[in-house]
C-alpha cells in the first residue's frame, strides 16, 4: 500500500512536470524547424532535413504531396510547371481531367507509384526545381536549423534597438527601485520619528489601488510633460520607491540588531553612512531579491510600453515580439516567432538558474509575510 502510494505521487508529479515543460520543448523544437515542416500535418517531433537527387545533384529538398497510384508527370501545353495526373486519365497525348475538356500534354516522366513503392513530389529549397521521385530515394535525418535564430532577429527588424531599450529600462528600473526602496525602508524600519506609523500605513494602503485607476491621469501627466513616445514614463517612477519592495526590505532591515546603529551613532557616524556602509551591506540578499524581481518586471512588462511607446522603432522586446505575430505576408512564420520567443525567454531562464535559491526565497517570503 505504501509503495503504491509513492508510485502514485511520482506519477502525478512527473505527469505535471511533463505538462509544464512541454510548451518550452515545443517552442524550441519549432524554432529549429524549416517553415514547411510546421505547416504540414502531422508534425514530426524533431526537425528533419530531407535530401534527394534534384537538378543533377544531391541536395536538400522539400517533400511535397505523396503520389497515390500509377501516374504520369506531364507538362500541359502553355503551362510553366509539370503536374502529376493519374495515368488512366491520359491517352492520345492528352490529359482528360474529370472537369473540363482534354488538355494536350507532354509526358515528362512515368510515375509508377504503388502502395509498396510510393513516389513523392519534391522541390528544391529555392523553389526553382521540381521533380517526382520514389520515396525510398529521399533520405532524411534529424537536423536543427540554427540559422532560424539570426533570421528571426532579422525579421524583427529593429531587434538590436528593442534589446537596447529593454536593457536600459531594466537597468534604470533596478537601480531606481533598489536605491529608493532601500532608502525609504530604512526610514521606516530603523529610525524613530513622529508620524512614521501612519505614513507606513498609508503606504501599505496604496498597494490596494488597482493600476487602471491611476492609468489615465498618469498618461495625461506624462503627456503634458512631453514624455509620451519616450522611455521616460517607464522608469521615472521607479526612483520614487515602490510600496511592496519597501515593505519587503523593511521586514529584513528590522532583523538587524539596533545596537549596531547605536554604536555607530555614538561614534559620530552620519545617518546616511550608517545606512550606506553598515545596513545595506548586511542586507544584500534582500536587495538582490528586490533587484531580481524588478529586472523581471521590466523585462516582461507589456502594458506599460504598449501605452507609452508610439513609434515602432522605439519598442521594447515585448512589443517587438508581439508585432512579429503576423509577418508582412500576413501569415505567421511559426519557426521565426518561436525562435524570437526563445530569445526573449532565454535570459529569464538563465537568470533563474543562476539565482534559483534567491527566487524561491523571495517568492516564499512575499507569500508568507503577506
Amino acid at each position: 500500500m505504501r509503495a503504491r502510494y509513492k508510485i502514485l505521487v511520482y506519477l502525478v508529479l512527473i505527469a505535471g512536470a511533463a505538462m509544464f515543460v512541454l510548451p518550452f520543448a515545443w517552442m524550441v523544437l519549432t524554432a529549429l524547424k524549416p517553415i514547411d515542416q510546421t505547416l504540414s500535418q502531422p508534425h514530426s517531433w524533431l526537425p528533419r532535413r530531407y535530401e534527394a537527387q534534384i537538378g543533377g545533384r544531391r541536395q536538400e529538398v522539400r517533400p511535397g504531396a505523396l503520389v497515390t497510384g500509377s501516374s504520369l508527370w506531364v507538362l500541359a501545353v502553355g503551362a510553366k510547371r509539370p503536374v502529376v495526373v493519374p495515368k488512366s486519365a491520359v491517352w492520345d497525348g492528352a490529359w482528360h481531367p474529370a472537369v473540363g475538356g482534354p488538355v494536350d500534354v507532354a509526358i515528362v516522366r512515368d510515375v509508377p507509384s504503388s502502395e509498396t513503392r510510393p513516389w513523392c513530389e519534391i522541390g528544391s529549397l529555392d523553389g526553382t526545381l521540381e521533380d517526382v521521385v520514389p520515396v525510398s530515394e529521399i533520405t532524411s535525418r534529424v537536423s536543427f536549423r540554427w540559422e532560424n535564430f539570426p533570421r528571426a532577429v532579422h525579421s524583427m527588424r529593429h531587434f538590436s534597438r528593442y534589446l537596447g531599450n529593454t536593457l536600459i529600462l531594466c537597468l534604470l528600473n533596478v537601480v531606481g527601485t533598489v536605491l529608493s526602496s532601500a532608502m525609504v525602508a530604512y526610514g521606516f524600519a530603523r529610525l524613530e520619528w513622529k508620524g512614521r506609523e501612519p505614513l507606513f500605513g498609508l503606504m501599505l494602503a496604496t498597494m490596494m489601488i488597482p493600476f487602471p485607476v491611476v492609468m489615465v491621469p498618469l498618461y495625461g501627466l506624462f503627456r503634458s510633460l512631453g514624455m509620451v513616445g519616450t522611455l521616460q514614463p517607464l522608469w521615472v517612477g521607479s526612483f520614487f520607491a515602490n510600496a511592496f519592495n519597501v515593505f519587503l526590505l523593511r521586514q529584513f532591515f528590522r532583523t538587524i540588531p539596533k545596537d549596531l546603529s547605536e554604536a555607530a551613532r555614538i561614534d559620530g557616524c552620519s545617518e546616511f553612512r550608517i545606512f550606506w556602509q553598515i545596513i545595506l551591506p548586511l542586507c544584500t540578499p534582500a536587495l538582490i531579491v528586490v533587484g531580481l524581481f524588478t529586472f523581471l518586471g521590466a523585462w516582461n512588462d507589456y502594458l506599460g510600453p504598449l501605452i507609452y511607446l508610439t513609434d515602432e522603432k522605439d519598442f521594447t522586446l515585448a512589443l517587438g515580439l508581439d508585432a512579429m505575430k503576423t509577418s508582412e505576408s500576413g501569415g505567421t512564420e511559426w519557426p521565426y516567432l518561436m525562435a524570437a520567443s526563445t530569445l526573449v525567454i532565454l535570459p529569464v531562464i538563465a537568470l533563474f538558474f543562476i539565482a534559483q535559491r534567491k527566487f524561491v526565497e523571495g517568492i516564499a517570503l512575499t507569500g508568507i509575510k503577506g
Partner: protein
Amino acid sequence: MTPGERRQSVAGLAFVSPWLLGFVVFTLYPVCASIYFSFCDYDVLSKPVWVGFLNYQDMLSDSVFWQSVRNTLVFNLMALPLGLVSALLLALLLNQPVKLKGTFRAIYYLPSLVPAVAGAMVWLWILNGRLGLLNQALDALGFSNPPQWLVDPKWTKPSLALVSLWGCGNTVVIYLAALQGVPQSLIEASMIDGASPWRRLVHVTLPAISPVIYFNLLIGIIGGLQVFTSAFIMMGGAGPERSVLFYAIYIYQNAFEYRHMGYASAMAWILCMLILVLTLLASRIARRFVHYQGD
C-alpha cells in the same frame, strides 16, 4: 526633544522623502484626478468637461460593459479554482518525501517567470486550430473534430484558463513554503492519534496553512479581475464575439483606442469597488475557515 531624537526625526523624513514625493505625484494626484475625470468627458487632447454622473449612467446601459463584467467573472470562476487547487495539489505532493524535489519545484516555477508576450506566442502556436500541437494530439487520439480553441467563442475562456494554469508555479512555491512551516508536532500528534492521511490533511495540514490559502485567494481575485495581457495579445483585444473582452481590456480600449478617458476612469473606480466588495466577501467567508496560529 533631545538632539538625538530631532536628528532621527529629520533623518526619518529625509529617508522616506522619495516615497513621499512619489506618493504625491504618482498616486495622490492620479487618484484625485481619476475621480474628477470619472465625472467628465475627457479625451486628453482637450480640457475635461464636467458631465456629472453621465459616465456611470452610461455604464448601466452599455451592453458591452456588462459583457466585459460577465466575461471577467466567468473566466475567473474557471481559472481561479483551477489554479488554486492544482497548485495546492502539486505543493502537497512536493511536500512528500520525494526525490528530485528541487528539480520538480524548478520545473513548476519556471513558466510563471516567462514574459507574458512570449508565453502567449507559445500558446498561440500550441492551441492553433489546424496546426497546433494540442489538436494534432487530439486528432491522433481519434477526436475527429477537435475544438477551435482560439476561434470558437465557447472555448476561448477555457483556453486562457489553461494558459494561466501554466503560470501557477508561483502559487505552488508559496504553498510549499507554508507547508514546510506546519509544526511537526501537530503532524506527529495526529499520527499518534491514528488519524488517516486524508483526515490529517483535512483537519491538520489545511487548517494550518489556511492563512496562505486565503492570501492566494485574495491575490488571485485582485489579479484575476485585472486580467489583461495574455487575452489582449492572443486574441488581439476582444476575441471572437467579444468572448474574452475582459474588464481591464475594455478599460484600455476606452482609454487609448476610443479616447473615452472619462468613461475609462469611471470604469476603473467601479473595478476598485468590485475588488473591495469581493475581498470583503472573501474575508467574511475566511473568518470561518482561516485559523491563525495562537487562536
